[in-house]
């Protein structure tokens, strides 16, 4: 879990525009500046630095507090205490957080031999959420990218089979986006 500065330096030097970011606690984290940097960075990590294990592909929507319209009924009605009614969703960001209309993508690569881990981050705008697909390099990205597409609406360019994976066919929208509003379907109460 050490910082492992040598591979981080090589990564930062090889990918222009990338910079060390505020780390996911205890793990080295690198922020990429543009989507086109992802494939070179991933290739470098896989072929030269020994990170041949793609652990995780995910995203964070930084639009703001979650829209309660995304839930079928009032989440967390809390009937027992009148003092704290409603769900614990804070309307304002805490210190150090800025809400902005971006999707923050996150990849985690592992090195199983030397027990190292590195996180890559990339911000894409919410309305044009696109990133290159890693399926050519890591087959493990296949389903995880489909999941991110299904729940966040991120289009991974070059993915061979980018279709819904978890949500039912009739569900409109991408549920994990913060502004998702649930449209009542035939299984919800009238």
């Amino acid at each position: 879990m050490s910082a492992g500065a040598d591979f981080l330096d090589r990564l930062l030097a090889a990918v222009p525009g990338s910079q060390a970011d505020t780390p996911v606690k205890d793990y080295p984290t690198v922020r990429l500046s543009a989507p086109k940097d992802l494939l070179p960075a991933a290739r470098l990590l896989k072929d030269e630095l020994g990170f041949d294990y793609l652990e995780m592909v995910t995203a964070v929507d930084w639009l703001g507090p979650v829209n309660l319209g995304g839930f079928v009924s009032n989440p967390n009605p809390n009937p027992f205490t009148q003092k704290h009614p409603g769900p614990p969703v804070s309307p304002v960001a805490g210190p150090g957080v800025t809400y902005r209309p971006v999707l923050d993508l996150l990849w985690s690569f592992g090195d199983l031999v030397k027990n190292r881990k590195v996180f890559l981050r990339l911000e894409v705008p919410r309305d044009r959420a696109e990133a290159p697909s890693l399926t050519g390099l890591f087959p493990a990205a296949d389903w995880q990218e489909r999941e991110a597409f299904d729940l966040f609406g991120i289009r991974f360019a070059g993915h061979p089979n980018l279709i819904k994976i978890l949500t039912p066919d009739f569900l409109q929208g991408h549920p994990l986006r913060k502004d998702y509003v649930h449209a009542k379907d035939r299984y919800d109460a009238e």
Partner: protein
Amino acid sequence: MQSEELIVTEGGLEMDTMFVNMGPQHPSTHGVLRLGLTLAGEVITKAFPDIGYLHRGTEKLMETRSYHQCVVLTDRWDYCSAMTNNLAFCLSAERLFGTQVPPRAQALRVVMCELNRIASHLILLGTYGIDIGALTPFLYTFREREMILDLYEKCCGARLTYNYIRLGGVAADIDSGWVAKCREFLEFFKPRLDEYDTLLSFNPIFLARTKDIGIISKETAVAWGLSGPNLRGSGVSYDVRKSEPYCGYEQYDFEVPLGASGSCWDRYFCRVQEMRQSVRIVEQALAELPTGELMAKGVPKIPKPPAGEAYAHVEAPRGDLGIFLVSDGGAAPYRLHVRAPCFINLAILQEILVGKKVADVIAVLGSFDIVLGEVDR
């Protein structure tokens, strides 16, 4: 195998592909997995796993639950090993808070998680036997599993969804009677493992159905991101308990069993050997159980962690379970992502099923030990 001669006759007997739908209701898919298979004769030419039949939107729900309420939902991902789910979430949240867990709680977490690993692998032994056609082991493994559940019930009151490991520690203490009962179980259980070996593991019919079936090479396993016994069955030594020890796993002496060839039998036998190692860990942890507090001081009723991101992963019975947690300073997680081992393990099916006979599908699928609650979340 499909023979080429059959196709040549003009207008006569022709080989055509057939679509076979397995699931979502199928006794051997261990839940609600759906497999679309295209067959040429008996050989699979295309496999398409369809999941989402148990998608409950947990990640979204957690965005409006307080941290203590989230632990309840974690129980229901991988319901065969709810303890490790609790642990993964709590470790991640504790990293966010910077909480130090007292040593007694650490040891109790290890004891409970290892017992849960045994209980979870026992389910696999039983149901995999049923899949292959051996009905009896199911009755034996569930007998032993009930003993573990009794221990859990005595400690925290629940049989399946424990909510035992909490933010900052554990919920309930164990007494000397519990320890004695646990030791009694371990003594009872050790010879049972040899019994399973004679009953199932080295049974000629079982070997014929699983050995040299569904072979995954080291490189393929790593490329597809397999983890847990599925990865170790292919001979890759990767165990989070060794590579990034949590809860004081570094002080226990245990081995990481590896498979030789990556076949279904290797994946299965890895689990049998893991149970032996789990017994060793529980024995060591019970021998040196520290005394003291169960909960860390100062965990509030409505925790509001400082803004930040944390990732923690544990070695769950089914693989590397990781929780990525983002906080914006509010009382609910801003975003929670589960690196679900079953979900990632399952993706490889579309590749390795191609070229197999249809009769081997269940043998291959069963050896992955999937739990659909975690696949779909």
